[in-house]
């Protein structure tokens, strides 16, 4: 009873938050505090129930709502179930929800007064409710309802500031792709339904699928969930929607919503279909898509000058890393290496958790910066480290984590992924074994490019001198926002240092998804060592690395104390009298070498304009601007759009006839139908 209660507590609190924010709309402050504090509680409850799901036996409950008595089918109340997979994702969701809700208290306070908060609060709560519901759902109807609730609610968050045209364009694209994805997922469920004769997951699990329908389910689910997750050719909504949403919403969307899509994929492909029926190319496809996302995401991220857009592209990259882990797991499973498959899955899940934390942190940081400078263009920032020292420090932790630098958490999960990839020789000459090193190479390339990208971000945004007056007058954000960012930052460090405590929990997931997927070796050598296969093979001990760090740090500190005091002086300017902020490197100039190197991918549209004082040598002003278009747009989406417009025009012409023309349609239809009878 109490476990049921706990399971429902998180969603119930989120639902209460929805109602409360509707009812208390009259007072902004009360509305803000009550909604967000309820959401914090909801997040905490979700984490607790998630941990319970990881540790305890699965719990299933049914709610007395839903579709009763469909013809020839069992009743369809809403089924919920908490198992290890759901539990893990509940922890991810709950953690970030709690932190973001704390952050939101401060963030919402700082929003402009003229705008109603109700849509923001209501849809935020519904969004969270939807995500919790997706993870808990145990029948396809409940799953789809929660899934679409999540999509629609987040759509309203994207268009919250709806006066700007960019916002509703992004919202449109987002909802369109969400709808398409939802329908694809729905059809994959429908195939399972036809074979399992019930909408319940329990029946779908036992359904026997033909190889063809199993592959169809895999493809449809992969496309549908991939669209939400933002895998490479399907990612286009992500860099549009995330920048325009309020920052707390984009933290949740990028931090956990795309992870919920990963959950859905795991649930359908690993759990419902089962990897036993998988075809050999499934894993390969996931690997290939993952690799393209990893590299594509980071390459396009590098060329962005909008901070949140850049972060959005990095989500594409990180989802790619997760996909590589999952793909490895699928490949290993198909070729009969369950424990390696478990390793790949653990790597993917660990990265899921890590990415949720550091991407949430970075988006919250971006929100703080945005709030301070009123711009998300990095070209308007600079020198914020002096005005916002704590935000800068927390943001730096996020940057280090996402760049996969030891001893932070991003490194651990990438390390595990590399370890799984390096086990490719055990596949022995299968067609995919050559693909895996290639994925590893892409992963390595992306890791280095990510570091480059975040040097750029941190350097341009926080360092140097302010480029705009707003940046010069920026001020530190309030305590709520700092607390909201502090939590994930702390966890980034802890998860980087103590993976050995976390991984046994995560390893509960492969235990239920992968038969014989045992991972004892991973942590068998005590709390200090992470050994994926065996200690001879590879090991990593973040605490020792950290201890060495600290030791060396102490020595350095002593040196520092003994050293001479420093003197401050003006920057040496090569004799130029007026150094100013505009002489700094900008985001565009920083990424110029890479733009040059990868110009075949970027197709940069460069524009140089110069004006002079009557003679071409007397230059008055030189302007350089560059625009990078997403390749996928040009080669995939725009042709599709053109094709559709063409068809639409044709159909439109059919509707521009005279009355006699319309009568002719009826007449001809009649004749044709009668002709069929002959």
């Amino acid at each position, binding site marked *: 009873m109490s476990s049921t209660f706990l399971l429902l507590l998180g969603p119930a609190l989120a639902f209460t938050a929805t109602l409360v924010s509707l009812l208390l709309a009259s007072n902004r402050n009360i509305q803000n505090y009550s909604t967000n504090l309820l959401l914090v509680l909801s997040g905490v409850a979700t984490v607790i129930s998630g941990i319970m799901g990881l540790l305890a036996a699965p719990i299933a409950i049914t709610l007395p709502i839903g579709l009763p008595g469909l013809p020839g089918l069992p009743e369809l109340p809403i089924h919920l179930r908490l198992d290890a997979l759901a539990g893990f994702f509940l922890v991810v969701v709950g953690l970030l929800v709690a932190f973001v809700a704390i952050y939101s208290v401060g963030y919402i306070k700082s929003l402009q007064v003229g705008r109603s908060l109700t849509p923001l609060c209501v849809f935020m709560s519904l969004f969270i409710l939807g995500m919790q519901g997706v993870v808990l759902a145990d029948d396809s109807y409940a799953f789809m309802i929660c899934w679409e609730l999540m999509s629609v609610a987040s759509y309203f968050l994207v268009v919250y500031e709806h*006066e700007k045209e960019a916002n*509703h364009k992004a919202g449109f694209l987002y909802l369109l792709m969400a709808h398409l994805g939802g329908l694809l997922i729905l059809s994959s469920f429908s195939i399972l339904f036809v074979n399992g004769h019930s909408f319940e997951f329990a029946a779908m699990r036992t359904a026997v699928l033909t190889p063809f329908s199993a592959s169809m389910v895999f493809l449809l689910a992969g496309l549908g969930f991939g669209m939400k997750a933002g895998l490479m050719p399907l990612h286009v909504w992500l860099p549009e929607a995330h920048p325009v949403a309020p920052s707390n919403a984009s933290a949740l969307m990028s931090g956990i919503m795309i992870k919920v899509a990963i959950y859905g994929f795991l649930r359908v492909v690993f759990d419902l279909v089962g990897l036993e029926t998988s075809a050999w190319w499934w894993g390969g496809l996931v690997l290939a898509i993952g690799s393209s996302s990893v590299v594509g995401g980071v390459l396009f991220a590098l060329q962005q000058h909008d901070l949140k857009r850049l972060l959005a592209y990095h989500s594409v990259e990180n989802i790619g890393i997760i996909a590589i882990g999952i793909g490895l797991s699928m490949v290993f499973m198909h070729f009969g290496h369950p424990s390696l498959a478990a390793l790949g899955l653990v790597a993917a899940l660990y990265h899921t958790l890590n990415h949720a934390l550091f991407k949430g942190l970075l988006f919250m940081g971006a929100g703080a910066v945005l709030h301070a400078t009123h711009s998300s263009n990095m070209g308007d920032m600079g020198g914020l480290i002096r005005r916002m020292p704590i935000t800068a420090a927390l943001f730096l932790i996020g940057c280090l984590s996402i760049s996969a630098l030891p001893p932070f958490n991003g490194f651990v999960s990438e390390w595990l992924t590399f370890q799984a990839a390096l086990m490719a020789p055990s596949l022995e000459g299968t067609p995919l074994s050559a693909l895996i090193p290639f994925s590893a190479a892409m992963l390595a390339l992306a890791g280095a490019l990510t570091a480059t990208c975040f040097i750029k971000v941190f350097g341009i945004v926080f360092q140097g001198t302010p480029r705009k007056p707003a940046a010069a007058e920026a001020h530190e954000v309030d305590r709520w926002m700092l607390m909201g960012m502090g939590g994930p930052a702390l966890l980034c460090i802890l998860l980087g240092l103590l993976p050995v405590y976390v991984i046994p929990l995560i390893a509960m997931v492969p235990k239920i998804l992968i038969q014989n997927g045992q991972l004892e070796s991973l942590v068998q050598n005590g709390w200090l060592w992470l050994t994926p296969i065996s200690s001879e093979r590879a090991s990593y001990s973040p605490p020792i690395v950290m201890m060495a760090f600290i030791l060396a740090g102490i020595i350095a500190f002593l040196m520092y104390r003994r050293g001479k005091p420093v003197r401050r002086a003006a920057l040496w300017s090569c004799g130029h009298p007026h150094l100013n902020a505009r002489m700094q490197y900008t985001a565009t100039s920083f990424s110029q070498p890479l733009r040059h190197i990868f110009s075949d991918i970027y197709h940069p549209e460069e524009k140089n304009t110069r004006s002079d004082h009557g003679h071409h040598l007397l230059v008055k002003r030189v302007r350089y601007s560059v625009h990078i278009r997403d390749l996928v747009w040009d080669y995939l989406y725009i042709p599709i759009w053109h094709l559709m417009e063409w068809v639409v025009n044709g159909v439109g012409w059919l509707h521009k006839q005279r*009355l006699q023309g319309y009568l002719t349609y009826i007449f001809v239809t009649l004749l044709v139908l009668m002709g069929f*009878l002959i």
Partner: protein
Amino acid sequence: MNLFYLLLGIPLLSSGILAFVGHARLAAGLNIIAGMLTFFAALGLSFEVFEKGTILLYGQSFFLDAFNVFLVSLTAFVSTTTAIFSYSYMLNEKEKSRVSPKSLRLYHAMFQMFIFCMLLALTTNNLGVLWIALELATLTTVLLVSLYRTPKAISAAWKYFILCGVGIALALLGTILIFSTSSEVLGHSNDALSWTLLYQNAERLSPNVMSLAFVFIMVGYGTKVGLVPMHTWLSDAHAEGPTPISAVLSGLLLNVALYALVRCKVLVDIATKQNMAGELMIGFGLLSLIIASLMLHRQYDIKRMFSFSSIEHMGIMTVAFGIGSSLANFAALLHMTVHSLVKSGIFFTVGHAVQEMGTQSMTKIRGLIHHQPGIGWGLILGTIAIAGFPPFAVFASEFMLIAAALQTYPWIVGLILPSLVIAFAGLFRHLQPMVFGVPPEECEVVRVNMLPVYIHLGLALVLGLAMPEFLADWYNYAAIVLHGGAQ
């Protein structure tokens, strides 16, 4: 059987009375009361059917079974809420002097007359009377569509009149053909057109004649349903008439026409012992779905756009009825209900939005959420509901439809899914700028009554999230009745 008297009597009587009531508020009020009384009668009847099963009245003249009594209550309900909406709407129109008192009298009288026709069409047991009632409904709505007497309205009404006239004449031909074979079985009398008797003796009807008859009925009633390519009247009629009429046309008349089609389809399927009629319906349904989805992209007029959305949804229902398994029938019935509720709700909002902005052109409507949040939110929530997002029940029915289609005709899913996405894109690309953004200068605040909208959307929500048990049983029962052909 007093309730049945009331059901048909109230609309007929009030139509007569309202023709003479010149006082605008009084007439609108009476209209609402008449609607409510009819609705209560319908409710009473449906409980009776629920308890006792199919009821036959006056010999074989009228009958009520699960299928039609459900449509009767739906019709009565939506007509009541439409009457409520039309109260504020028509008063606004009158203030702007878009309608004369004389037209207003005509409007109220014809409104009730139209309700009467639909109830008659639904309850009659005679295929001939069904035809008469549908034709009469067309004629009354022709008058309503041309109510504003603008050139566009006249032109639209004329188009509606001719196309539906021809269409429904073809349906009469089909009916005659059915009669020609059934009179050999059931004798040359009214019985030979009585649906219950036909249904019992369907196996003895000539399959060849029934096939030919169904071709005519398909084209004929299909015109009225608004199936492509016979749909061309629909958008004009919706766009140019008063909005309450657009709401009932979309929400009710199309249903009734589809009802007629489905009744005949069941007969034909039994007679021909194959699913020829069903497959024909699937074909037309898919065509409507695809073409209407594409057409949604090319709209400039807000009411015209939503009328194409109606065509799209009638296509979905036609496909579902065409598939004909009990799950598909369940889906179709649910879709019919929710589409009526949501679409009429959308038309209510659209009506107010048009009054607020003073134009039907979508390029000029901007910033509804800013200006009158109730209208803006109503419109966007309604569109989200009609586009098939859960937890609104349109999703539930599409969900079941896709499952049912995969069971029997998997390939059509490949056509349904893209069309749904295209349709959604079409709706939303126009909707978003209207709802969001900054309102134009010249818009004015109008008196609105959003209650019917929220009732409709609320019902759609309840149906999707927690469908009451008795309603599900009811659909189930109706789905089995329709599935009779295969039993």
